[in-house]
């Protein structure tokens, strides 16, 4: 069985225009018509609108989280134009208490989970990267088949419960620790590394662990970065398993606290006094929680952006 996740990638060489060109100037091939002014304007408007639809709500959330109660009352709710920024909402949320604890839980689960998932996945991907090794096909089939079925929510729930993982953070890590898709992407990349390089290292006496650590991994930084981001975002964004397996409200990660505070509009534990007496705006607190959830992702993902295509497409798998 051969699974094909995406087309193999050739890449654009758009610079066919004649003569030297300025950096950043359009590389339009000689045979292509000059674009009409209306066409250019239309494209510009469409792209700007698409970007605006994404950025405008985020702007409102960030500005409101930084606004004082007076500004928010004056605007009648959400604030579009910043006026006299204040960090009071963040200061209150991060001075211990429910949200501080939840943020710490999320950071820890994400860190531990990502390291664990990456270790397991990289080892497995390397172990399966040599076609013709013993049991290679069997093991690959075993993993591939899981992409076609799901055992179902109820049996999985009963299993996690039977394993005694309820009310432990392991329940947030182990059931979702391995993504077969990610392993296949890593494996596809490892398989592309020049076999001569690996063979010569083997002749020099290097074992598989050493080859993986000193040759394969340094050559795979780009794909490792992408898969690390995928796993980390997965752990950071997860909330369902916590709602399923954790009963203690004090153990909840940030996303679950965000459901309570923002969606269900509950006042954060310990801060209701400050909100009622008027120093703190409840709305600013909600927005600040949202910013805390989106900030790490928004800061990290653009750094890995240039490698996304690799992470999405080298999963083209050969059995």
């Amino acid at each position, binding site marked *: 069985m051969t699974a094909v996740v995406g087309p193999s990638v050739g890449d654009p060489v758009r610079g066919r225009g004649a003569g030297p060109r300025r950096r950043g100037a359009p590389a339009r091939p000689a045979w292509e018509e000059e674009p009409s002014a209306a066409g250019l304007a239309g494209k510009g408007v469409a792209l700007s609108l698409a970007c605006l639809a994404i950025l405008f709500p985020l702007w409102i959330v960030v500005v409101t989280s930084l606004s004082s109660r007076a500004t928010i009352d004056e605007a009648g709710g959400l604030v579009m134009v910043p006026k006299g920024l204040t960090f009071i909402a963040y200061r209150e949320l991060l001075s211990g208490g429910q949200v501080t604890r939840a943020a710490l839980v999320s950071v820890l689960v994400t860190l531990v989970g990502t390291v664990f998932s990456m270790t397991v996945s990289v080892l497995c991907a390397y172990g399966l990267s040599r076609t013709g090794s013993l049991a290679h096909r069997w093991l690959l089939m075993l993993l591939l088949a899981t992409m076609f079925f799901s055992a179902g929510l109820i049996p999985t729930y009963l299993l996690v419960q039977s394993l005694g993982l309820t009310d432990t953070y392991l329940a947030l890590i182990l059931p979702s620790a391995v993504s077969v898709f990610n392993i296949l992407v890593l494996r596809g990349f490892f398989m592309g590394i020049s076999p001569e390089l690996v063979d010569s290292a083997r002749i020099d006496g290097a074992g598989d662990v050493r080859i993986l650590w000193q040759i394969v991994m340094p050559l795979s930084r780009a794909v490792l970065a992408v898969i690390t981001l995928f796993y980390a975002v997965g752990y950071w964004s997860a909330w369902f398993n916590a709602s399923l397996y954790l009963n203690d409200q004090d153990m909840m990660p940030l996303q679950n606290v965000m459901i309570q505070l923002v969606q269900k509009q509950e006042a954060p534990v310990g801060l209701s006094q400050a909100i009622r007496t008027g120093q703190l705006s409840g709305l600013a607190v909600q927005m600040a929680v949202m910013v805390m959830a989106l900030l790490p992702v928004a800061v990290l*993902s653009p750094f890995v952006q240039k490698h996304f295509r690799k992470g999405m497409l080298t999963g083209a798998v050969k059995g």
Partner: protein
Amino acid sequence: MSHSTVPRDGAEASTPATTPAQSGGSTGSTGSSTGSTGSPRGRGAGRASLRHRFRRDRVLILMTLPAVVLVLVFAYLPILGNVVAFQDYDPYLSDNGVVSILNSPFVGLDNFRRMFEDPAFWNAVGNTLVLFSVQLLLFFPVPVLVALLINSVVRPRVRAVAQAVLYLPHFFSWVLVVAVFQQMFGGAGMLSQLLRHHGYDGLDIMTDPDTFPFLLTAQSVWKDAGWGIIVFLAALASVPTDLYEAAAMDGAGRWRRMWHVTLPALRPVIALLLVLRVGDALTVGFEQILLQRDAVGTDAGEVLDTFVWWNGVRNQDFGYAAAAGLVKGVVSIGLVLAANKVAHLMGEQGVYKK
């Protein structure tokens, strides 16, 4: 953010990641345990070499073990738990689910019979199919169009910045996406605030059952349409420029080049993604819907997955919920295989090929 992607992408193309030379070596293997013909390592066959091959590859096998064990425990082992679908499962028999399963009475197909007579189940099925159809019609074409738009932008700077912005929401959690939509379109959201400011009544789109499928689709577009363009961009980039040049020389204008060169190049990718989507038709965004199920009510907001969740996790009616989950799982496998079959018949690759 400010990297110019085009030269970098060019460098990516020279990485050996997708060269098939390496993996092509296994084409001659005849069975699961005979080795590859491509390398000298798997030359021997028979009993004597099995021990040899084990000694040679034991480190590799050992490396796969942690992942294999996790997959066996959390993907394969729970399949057995589906027996509760045929039981009157009592979760209070024991703290341990396995003990409860062993002591619960079997009731044959009672759970399934009850399910097929339950209007709530058929409501969930109906909602699932409506949501799938609306999403397929309104979501699926968006990434193709955005990819064509981005692809026609030649300035590398503009491309890179636009891509960075468009990819971003894919990495947001559903909790965050739903919260953002609530702040924009909810009863106390930006839209209502503006309407009230100008003397109109505010409106709450987040709790309106009639527009719920469109709300969900809008959220999916906002979150994932940008991410969806990656696959199409790659396919567009792999079209040889000569084709465009030749078409232009023959007098094909911008639109005819798109119709006769660009779209045929995208066809296999579109077919593949359609197959994947249809195969997954009964899964329509579990987390997204669960988060908003209470706000719109179950008439519009209950789908198969949330039906299973409600009956099992909330009502502790595990046998009944597992029965619904099992039906969904079996039908889904059938759909995946059927969708692939159709793709093969149409001459496309599908998810796998023999």
